[in-house]
């Protein structure tokens, strides 16, 4: 008797827990997948086929969002893809890596570049506002947080009191060797905006 009651209770409790968790999980995922898809129908046919390899191989262990958001210099992407090939259980061979790099380079110089130009155009003469949007657009927040938002393992709060504009520029485009921060490809104009934003992050 007690057994049966306990079993019913366990069933009811687990159903409730799963429903609650499930709903929030669905909501969370809905957001996730929207960020991940890009429309490549306007890309050249060969790049579209490269995109397929990228979308298949690079989604095995994590979503595509960080690669579609973050920017790297060509060497930066080469290093990143080589790093992914050297992960345990990675199944990316060198020819697939080559195709993936072609897609990433094309996407960098077209879609990503265009989205940042749009930010500049829309924010006109407010560099720190443009910089704040670019911080998101360049995917800086997948590794850094500001005011607790983003990846809190490396918070940039107070960076504006710690570093000068020149230092910040150098840190972003050519991080010191041995640093885990990847080399980014950030045009000068965007860099000015990013730095203007970072300089507003003063110690309080």
């Amino acid at each position, binding site marked *: 008797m007690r057994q049966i009651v306990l079993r019913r209770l*366990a069933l009811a409790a687990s159903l409730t*827990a799963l429903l609650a968790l499930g709903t*929030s999980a669905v909501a969370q995922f809905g957001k996730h997948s929207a960020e991940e898809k890009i429309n490549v129908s306007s890309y050249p046919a060969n790049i579209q086929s490269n995109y397929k390899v990228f979308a298949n191989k690079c*989604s095995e262990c994590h979503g595509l969002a960080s690669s579609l958001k973050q920017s790297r210099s060509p060497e930066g992407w080469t290093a990143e893809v080589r*790093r992914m*090939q*050297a992960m*345990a*259980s990675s199944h990316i061979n060198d020819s697939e890596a080559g195709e993936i790099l072609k897609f990433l380079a094309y996407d960098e110089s077209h879609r990503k570049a265009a989205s940042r130009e749009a930010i500049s155009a829309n924010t006109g003469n407010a560099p720190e506002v443009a910089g704040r949007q670019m911080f998101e657009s360049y995917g800086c927040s997948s590794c850094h947080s500001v005011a607790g938002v983003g990846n809190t393992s490396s918070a940039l709060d107070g960076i504006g009191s710690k570093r000068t504009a020149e230092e910040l520029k150098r840190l972003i485009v050519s991080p010191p060797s041995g640093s885990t921060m990847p080399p980014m490809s950030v045009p000068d104009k965007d860099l000015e905006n990013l730095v203007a934003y970072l300089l507003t992050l003063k110690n309080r």
Partner: protein
Amino acid sequence: MISRNRFVFLACAVASLLVILGPRQASAVPQYARRYGITCYACHTIPPVLNQQGYMFQRLGHHLPPALEVSKPVQRILDLVRKEREWTVANNASFAVADFNYSAQRSTQEGQGSTSTSAIQVGSWNAYFGGWVPDTNFFYFAEMDIVAGGETNVDLPNAHIGYVGGTAKSSWYGTVGREHLQIAQGTRAAQVYSLLPSAPLVFENTGPTNFVFDQSPVGIAGGYTWASSKYKNIFGINAKLTNGDNADGSEILGASNKNSKDIWVDADWWYAPESGISFVTYQGKKNQTQNSGLSNEFTYNARIRREGVFANYMIGRDKVDLLGGYLHGNDDWQDPATQTPGTYQTNGGFGEVNYYVWRGLALAGRYDRLKQDLTGALRPTTLEQWQVGAERALTPTGNIVGRIAAGNSHGVDPIAFTGSATRTFEADIQFSF
């Protein structure tokens, strides 16, 4: 009114359709995946089967194995600790790793006819607490089973704390506490978790001395792991000194009528991404009680010895996995009637094929055979079992998995010499949140 058989058939058909055609939406990630924002496939071929990355994750004290690039500096464990995300409860606990299942079984016992049973139930519900102590090389892992085999029965098969040192390439660890022998110890074929609902017979078969290979004894363990660049080769060795089982087969947690210590050693070699070979041995002793409660009850100090080799090989661009294992058992055994000392010898093996159709869908089939031979018995007896099934992830991250399987087992009891056969059909959905 539909007949019972029709109902069973319909239920199976609906469950199968759900699994094969089920929605691909809806997802969340349980704690480890949640911690790094990665999918279940980073560490599992399909949950719960671990891949090389999952194995390394466990060996590195619950830290994500970093890339091992040629001529790049190798990270120390402490570097991995410093890179960890913020310590939060959500990053350390999973409360609902549960399985809802439908199972139908038809058993035939020699001289007794057949019986059929079926059930729709919460098959299992486990909670996990596992992670790292912030800024240190210490890690911990606890598994609480709330429902197991459809029964509410709170148990703690894993509860240990450990320390990991060295680098991502060459690391060692030590743990103390209660630890499952076969979880993440060993390459693919040597792990109790498989694509099919039940583990190979050699892990789960309970011999006349009540010993089963799939146990969670209390003790201390230590291991060493070495990985080459790009994880092309991984060598792992692991040893445990444990309290083993009580005379009645239960695991020893406190005072015990058993005074010996058991030792368990395994050596693993992973090559290419997902192929590997493991050698396993267990040497133990226990006070075995026979004829318990009767006037001729007696106890003897049985020695238990198991030696096995398990291997898998991936072919066809990591689509087909061929797995096999062999385990030899040689336990002391005394006939309850005559009390003459003798042995219980087993030779068990299995062959399995897994076909990964695409990410998140796999087909599996396994054949098991276990030969048992007791001193004084008329002849050796055999148990045979086959199972086929399909496993499919229902979410893109792989945290909800549906499974259907059919199986058949038949054989003769090594003591009573009665034959029996069981046919099973199972459909289940596993959730990991």
